[in-house]
């Protein structure tokens, strides 16, 4: 339609020029024609304008509603177009109505949803509240359980401490060797119990020990650790431990940690093998302590990695029984507490547990004052424990105290110096005061334990290695009153301790001797260490428990008479009678017996050192030799036993450095056998079964498994038997009832 209009317009427009021409013509001709032309022109213009208007309207309409325009086009123009435009308006209104309806509907839905949301929010809030309440309750329960644990452990600890003090008291007044032996065992067991209670505390996240201020010599920390495990006899403390101090607040935890590792090592290695505890200073200033066993190790490497990963965690998770044994769990927590790194490393045979103490936990050279403080503390503990004159007291701590006291600041934190000097110091005491004599006498054996190792050495003719009068030293312990030989021990002790590795001592000695000398040195120092181990950091915390020193005091407590060792010596000597008469092999065997006996006696020493420095197997062995000597037949008697001891020392003394086989004198094998014998009575049933399966080793797991199976079997069969019996009884009575 628009096109028609446009065409019409065009026609009109075409006509226009003609009209214009006519107008021009009329302009010239006459006014009448001119007016007519003008009219026509006006009409054309009006028509044209109308056409244009229509066209515009049509176009506009078409643009607005194509459908309506189409219809309009069909039926004509003008009015039709307007009508269809009205139609379009009506449809929009309908739609608006529908939209309004939909909107209302949507609004209703929205309101509904909003209500639902409100409801959900409320619900969520209540759930959140509930959750918070539950969490609080769980927290409360946990705290309650932990509190119970802590309370229980503390109570147990308190009881054990009291028990220990009673035992110490008893030990002080007991002179019968057999009873003393029992007491010593009790003492040691109580010490183990204490450690387990402390474990419980660690698990509960509590710490019962007050912080110690004074630094503790590293060697004492190590001794304390050794003294707290069951098979302390099997632990060999390396002689070349750095002369460091451990900061007071960490000392107890470090020794506890080591004790767990040691227990782990002893329970996972064959009962006749040794566990070596060494330490060395790293270039970074860190201190590396290594617990080395020759046990079963950890079989799949992945397992080792997993264990190491868990050991590195601060809190290895809530299930200590699962992949980490109780012991290692405790280790992990203790290590995390002080930033200590613990790592297990596989060896060809056995396992190395490496403990890396950060430099800040160790104090290299502590001022003499500090040393004196700690030593004094120990001495005080000794006094508390009922020791006779504190000075005599014996433990390493007391010794240190003496040294510090005498040397003033010169102590220089040199533990070895401390250990060394008291020797001489004590001698004078012995000479001078009768009261102290017994103490010294008693102590002498303790010392002798260290010395006995010397005896063999001397017998072997290799004392040259140490240059310093080991002979007098050996004599000293044997005859407690032998005053003048004082310097001997002191010097000897100083020697090895000072010149760090015993290897250094070796070379000067004659070639054959050196082989023996070196191993001998190691045990000797070990022995010394044990003998001196008075100051157990763990034992005398707060001075409540008599420390090792106290124990020492207890030993010489019996004033005047029969120092235990003397009795022991007599005892052993009697047993030894055969040994002396016999030839070499017989002698050795006999020594073995004595050793066994000695072993029975040995625990006292460790236990006695209450602080628990462990006389190792060789100590035990050495004892007979010592006894022998004490019996008076100094010269002839001991060669044989001495040899045996030396052999054993060699065999056991250097498990680390040299192969045990190499360089072991012929006596070695029998000695080892002897040692086994000796060890057996001392640590009955030490095998893994009894100890806490600290390391979830295969063996331990198997043991647990077997225990579980057998337990189930027993339980089930017991119940079954009972049920069957009841059934039979019921049946019988029924039958009787039927019969009558």
């Amino acid at each position, binding site marked *: 339609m628009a096109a028609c209009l446009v065409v019409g317009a065009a026609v009109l427009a075409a006509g226009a020029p003609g009209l214009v021409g006519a107008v021009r013509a009329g302009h010239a001709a006459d006014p009448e024609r001119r007016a007519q032309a003008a009219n026509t022109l006006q009409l054309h213009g009006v028509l044209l304008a109308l056409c244009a208007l229509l066209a515009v309207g049509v176009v506009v309409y078409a643009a607005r509603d194509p459908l309506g325009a189409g219809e309009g086009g069909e039926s004509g123009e003008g009015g039709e177009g307007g009508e269809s435009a009205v139609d379009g308006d009506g449809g929009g209104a309908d739609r608006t109505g529908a939209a309004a309806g939909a909107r209302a509907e949507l609004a209703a839905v929205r309101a509904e949803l909003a209500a639902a949301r409100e409801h959900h929010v409320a619900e969520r809030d209540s759930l959140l509240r509930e959750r918070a309440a539950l969490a609080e309750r769980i927290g409360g329960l946990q705290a309650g359980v932990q509190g119970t644990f802590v309370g229980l452990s503390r109570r147990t600890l308190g009881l054990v401490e009291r028990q220990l003090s009673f035992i110490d008291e008893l030990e002080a007044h007991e002179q019968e060797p057999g009873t003393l032996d029992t007491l010593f065992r009790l003492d040691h067991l109580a010490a183990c119990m204490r450690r387990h209670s402390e474990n419980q505390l660690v698990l509960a996240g509590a710490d019962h020990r007050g912080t110690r201020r004074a630094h503790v010599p590293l060697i004492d920390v190590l001794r304390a650790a050794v003294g707290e495990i069951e098979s302390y006899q099997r632990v060999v403390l390396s002689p070349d431990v750095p002369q460091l101090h451990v900061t007071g607040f960490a000392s107890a935890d470090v020794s506890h940690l080591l004790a767990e590792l040691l227990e782990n090592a002893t329970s996972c290695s064959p009962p006749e093998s040794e566990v070596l505890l060494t330490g060395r200073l790293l270039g970074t200033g860190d201190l590396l302590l290594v617990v080395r066993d020759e046990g079963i190790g950890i079989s799949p490497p992945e397992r080792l990695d997993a264990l190491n990963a868990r050991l590195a965690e601060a809190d290895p998770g809530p299930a200590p029984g699962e992949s980490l044994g109780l012991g290692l769990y405790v280790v992990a927590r203790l290590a995390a507490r002080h930033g200590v790194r613990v790592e297990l490393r596989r060896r060809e045979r056995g396992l190395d547990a490496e403990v890396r103490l950060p430099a800040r936990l160790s104090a290299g050279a502590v001022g003499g004052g500090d040393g004196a403080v700690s030593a004094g503390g120990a001495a005080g503990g000794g006094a508390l424990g009922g020791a006779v004159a504190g000075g005599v007291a014996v433990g390493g701590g007391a010794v240190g105290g003496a040294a510090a006291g005498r040397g003033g600041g010169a102590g220089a934190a040199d533990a070895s110096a401390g250990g060394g000097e008291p020797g001489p110091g004590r001698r004078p005491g012995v000479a001078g005061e009768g009261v102290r004599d017994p103490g010294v006498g008693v102590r002498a054996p303790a010392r002798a334990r260290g010395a006995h190792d010397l005896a063999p050495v001397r017998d072997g003719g290799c004392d040259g290695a140490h240059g310093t009068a080991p002979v007098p030293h050996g004599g000293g312990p044997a005859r407690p009153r032998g005053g003048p030989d004082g310097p001997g021990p002191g010097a000897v002790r100083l020697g090895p301790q000072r010149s760090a590795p015993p290897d250094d001592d070796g070379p000067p000695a004659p070639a054959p001797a050196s082989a023996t000398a070196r191993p001998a040195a190691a045990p000797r120092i070990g022995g010394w260490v044990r003998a001196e181990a008075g100051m157990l950091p763990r034992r005398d915390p707060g001075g409540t428990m008599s420390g090792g020193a106290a124990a020492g005091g207890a030993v010489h407590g019996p004033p005047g008479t029969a120092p235990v060792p003397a009795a022991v010596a007599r005892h052993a000597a009697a047993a030894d009678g055969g040994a002396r008469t016999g030839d070499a092999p017989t002698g050795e065997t006999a020594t073995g017996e004595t050793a066994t006996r000695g072993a029975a006696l040995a625990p006292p020493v460790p236990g006695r050192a209450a602080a628990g420095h462990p006389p190792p197997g060789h100590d035990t062995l050495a004892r007979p030799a010592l006894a022998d000597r004490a019996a008076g037949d100094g010269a002839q008697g001991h060669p044989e036993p001495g040899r045996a001891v030396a052999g054993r020392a060699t065999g056991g003394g250097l498990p680390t450095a040299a192969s045990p086989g190499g360089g072991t004198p012929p006596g070695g094998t029998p000695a080892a056998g002897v040692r086994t014998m000796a060890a057996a009575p001392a640590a009955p049933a030490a095998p893994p079964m009894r100890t806490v399966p600290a390391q979830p080793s295969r063996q331990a797991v198997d043991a647990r498994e077997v225990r579980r199976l057998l337990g189930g079997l027993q339980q089930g*069969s017991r119940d079954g038997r009972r049920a069957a019996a009841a059934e039979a009884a019921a049946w019988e009575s029924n039958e009787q009832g039927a019969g009558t």
Partner: protein
Amino acid sequence: MGIERAGSRYVNSTADHRAAISSLRWMLDNFTAEVPGVRSVVVVSADGLPLLAAPPQSAAAGEQLATVVSGIGGLTNGAADVMDGGRVKQTMVAMEDGCLVVMQAGDGSMLGVLTEPDCDLSVAAYHMELFVGRVGHVLTPGLRGELTG
């Protein structure tokens, strides 16, 4: 106890024998059904002959197990004699993939149970004892003749 009475009651007549045998079978089947993780149960006479087995298995397998059980029983009895340890109550062979528990039942006959590794042994042992308590007196040589013959 009423063992003599019961024994006489059971063993005297063939009918009673039959009843005893059927009840034994039934109880043994019950045993394997009731105790989860039991692989097989076998009752072996004092001289090593398999009397009953459940679930019914091939003769060779039953024979094997019976031989093993009887051997274990003999060994442990001998050991107990040597050690003056009194009567052997039970023996367990714990294997990686299972357990074998052997128990004395009646005079000389033995009950052997082979279990899965995850079997709860306390349950197994309970039912074994119950079984032994119930039928121990039945497992007499006379019955054995009946069973094997």
